[in-house]
């Protein structure tokens, strides 16, 4: 543990800054409300992605991951990140290099060429973890009192994503990865109901380089999950990872397209990143939470309709 509890180095990754910037916007705004300062990690890169780059060359993955960590080490801050993939990579890299002296020596040989050194002084934290363990449900619940007059009252299909809970041994969820409930608890503070649906803890299909190389296979996972979410009558899909988010958002359009003969009706479920929902619950505006689409820009997210959510807001506003 390097830093004080109310300040973190914010690691952005790739998908959030370069495709889903409203996740960054909403998260920054919500964290500010809870007086947690997020400091930029200047010059950070791809984590690198645990499925693809780790799959190509573990050593490179360790070296580039270590470089990212050194940026936060220089700031003397623990890393906060918003992506399950980045979590999987940096958590694993950080742990490996803290434990394995030989690997650390090798990695530092490479890093020396750019004048850096992995020291092993910081921790890696997912924003779900920070929200649940540091801020805590109680504090968030208290804030909702000053937020909305009426509860949001949506039926949520929470998608945990894989690397938030697995492998279980390095993660802060008491080895629970078969049937965790912390994410449901967190989002239910908003006044919404978190649904049980079949294969709730199944993968979205995007990871491991599958989306990149075998899109149809990857989207077949998503189709199945969307069918189960629909069967449970979900109003909104909640994610804690931009890649899962992309898979459900852009993926929904793609599923409707390539599986049109296989599905009974096109899917049309709004997808929210969990901080967007928490933000709404504590009284922040849909605009601040990035729910309002740009009227000019075409071919940018969100691809799923925000209107059902906005209507709810309108109802209770």
């Amino acid at each position, binding site marked *: 543990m390097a830093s004080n509890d109310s300040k973190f180095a914010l690691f952005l990754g790739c998908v959030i800054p370069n495709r889903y910037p409203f996740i960054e916007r909403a998260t920054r705004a919500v964290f500010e409300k809870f007086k947690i300062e997020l400091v930029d990690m200047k010059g950070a890169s791809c984590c690198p992605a645990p499925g693809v780059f780790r799959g190509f060359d573990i050593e490179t993955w360790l070296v580039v991951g270590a470089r990212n960590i050194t940026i936060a080490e220089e700031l003397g801050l623990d890393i906060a990140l918003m992506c399950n993939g980045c979590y999987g990579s940096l958590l694993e890299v950080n742990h490996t290099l803290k434990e394995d002296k030989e690997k650390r020596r090798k990695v530092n040989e490479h890093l020396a060429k750019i004048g850096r050194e992995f020291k092993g002084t910081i921790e890696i934290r997912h924003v779900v973890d920070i929200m649940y363990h540091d801020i805590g449900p109680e504090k968030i619940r208290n804030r909702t009192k000053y937020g909305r007059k009426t509860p949001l009252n949506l039926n949520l299909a929470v998608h945990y994503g894989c690397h938030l809970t697995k492998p279980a041994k390095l993660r802060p969820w008491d080895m629970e990865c*078969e049937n965790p409930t912390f994410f449901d608890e967190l989002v239910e503070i908003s006044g919404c109901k978190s649904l049980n649906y079949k294969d709730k803890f199944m993968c979205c299909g995007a990871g491991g380089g599958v989306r990149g190389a075998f899109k149809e296979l990857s989207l077949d996972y998503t189709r199945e999950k969307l069918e189960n979410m629909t069967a449970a009558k979900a109003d909104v899909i909640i994610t804690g990872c931009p890649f899962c988010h992309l898979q459900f958002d852009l993926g929904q359009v793609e599923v409707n397209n390539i599986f049109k003969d296989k599905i009974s009706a096109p899917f049309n479920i709004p997808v929210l990143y969990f901080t967007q929902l928490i933000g709404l619950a504590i009284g922040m505006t849909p605009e601040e939470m990035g729910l309002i689409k740009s009227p000019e820009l075409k071919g940018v997210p969100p691809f799923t309709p925000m209107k059902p959510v906005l209507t709810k807001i309108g109802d209770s506003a």
Partner: protein
Amino acid sequence: MVTKVKNLAELNGREPPKIGVYICWCGVNIGGVVDVPKLCDYARTLPYVVLASEYKFMCSDIGQGMIMEDIKDGKINRVVVASCSPRMHEETFRRACEEGGLNKFLFEQANIREHCTWVTMNDVPGATEIAKDHIRMAVAKVSELKPLEVTTVKVEPSTLVVGAGIAGINAALDLANSGYKVYLVDKSPTVGGHMAQLDKTFPTMDCSSCITTPKMSEIARNPNIELMTYSEVVSLDGYVGNFQVKIVKYPHYIDQDTCTGCGHCVDTCPVVCGNEFDLGMKPRKAIYLSFPQAVPGQYTIDMNHCIRCGICKEVCPTKSVRYNDKPEYVDIKVGTIILATGYDPYDARRMKQYGFGRIKNVINALQMERLLSSYGPTGGKVRRPSDQKEPKKLVWVQCVGSREFTGKGRKYCSRVCCMYATKQARSYKEKHPDAQIFIFYIDLRAFGKGYEEFYNDTAKNYGIKFIRGRVAELLEAENGNVIVRAEDTTLQRPLELEVDMVVLSVGLEPREDIDDIARIFNVTATKTEDGFLMEAHPKLRPVDTLTEGIFVAGNVVGPKDIPDTVAQAKAAASSASTLMARGEVEIVPYYSIVLSHKCAGCKSCISLCPFNAITFNEIENVAEINDILCKGCGTCVAGCPSKAIIQNHFGDAQILPMIETAIPKKPEKEEVEVE
């Protein structure tokens, strides 16, 4: 020319040592790795060694005969055998020494098998060097050993049997029928253990109650058996032949002598809670009898639930209700003890992917036994918990908590689950021929007498489908059905079945209180990796513990089926009666002795002794060691600040020469030249 050092015996004017060294080939175990004849040559060069011989199997009649001959011929007066571990054959060779006419404590065994050739088998020169070291050390020690006399103590002709399941019942009956007094103690209010909960038994399909309940009533009737249910052993003192046991009898709050078991109280008791015997699937009252055939047949009040409304007291025709009953402590003296405390079924909640406790229609196999039982919660009509519907399609999941190396379960195979699942499935099919049943297994283990035939018959005649694949996960469907996911590994295809109910074939675990049992009975050291108590030798002393006079039987040692459990119970009873029939037992004289002239009376040894063997003589102001209670652990010897305690057989006089000869060093001036 070898430098020889005069030893203490010689300095004290006794006969100088004449050591015979015997090196065993142990077939190829030792002989296949090291050059035994060369080791003999080496041994002959060691101080006081007068002869060195070798033989294929020293433990055989011929091998032992060689030692006896040499002693009788007066060639030797001390013996070293370099062979296996003393745990294996120390007694064998000591007996040979004794029969040859030598004090059996003038023997030392060098372990050149377990400590040498088995672990260094690929390094012949290295192994030979290690073997030499062991032999040299043994010779150094044996030169300094003193003859010791064994002590004998009387053995009380009575046995404490802890646990009144099928193991405890059988052991108790065998001993009682041989004429010994037996105290049979069980924690629960009734005898019978897990077997009383079972419906049928494999592979014979005979009713479990029909073979258990007669034994249970026999226990109650046998005049030699004092039955103490709802009781627990609190502490144990003493030693083999003379154990003092303190037992607490928990209050039943019902006078057990006057209660007639009429049941009026139960009808009127207003408190309803879950019945342990039916694993919570059936309610019981706060005043209860575990099950109709329970022995003893008197009632008990569960004070954790009783609201003291007083109704039972009013209605009891014999005025037997005693709300102010207190626990009663009883002291007994026994010669031997048999531990038969059994097992706990594996807690399936730990295998989270199976949703036990979360998915309503996922039950464990012991619950299934109760559902199948004619005196179970549903009178033998199996109903699924969510809606009391009769299940038409069922799955048994094998290896739940067994063969699991990740810490969520147990590494071992629980040995009974393959057969009990087959039995339960068959039982269900007998009553519901239309039902569809699947058993998912990793390996089907049918190793007992009649088991493979039982599987064959069941698969052939009952249409049960056996699928090779460990179930990956269970999901709950909207209608309460359970979705089973697995791979049929023989077809190499993933499989998804929706069924009405799933039975988890849970493995057997050490009892939750196994550590307390181990601590109270001082068998802590025998706890092995699997968590069960360890037998003294896995093959040759399967029902003994390392604490003499304490025996084990049944699942307290490890998972086993009923035939094996009963066999062990009878073996334990037989071992206990062997001790008692002889009437006295030899105590190994490894005890420590206080040199009273050196003892400063600081008492630090008293608190160090794990066996409560040291007392303080207030008059002489010195510590005294009870040579029978003392196990010779040496803690006090090491701890005594005045060096006033010495230990037989493992004293400085014996150990220091071993260390000195183990570590090569330059000759010192004090050494005395002989020859």
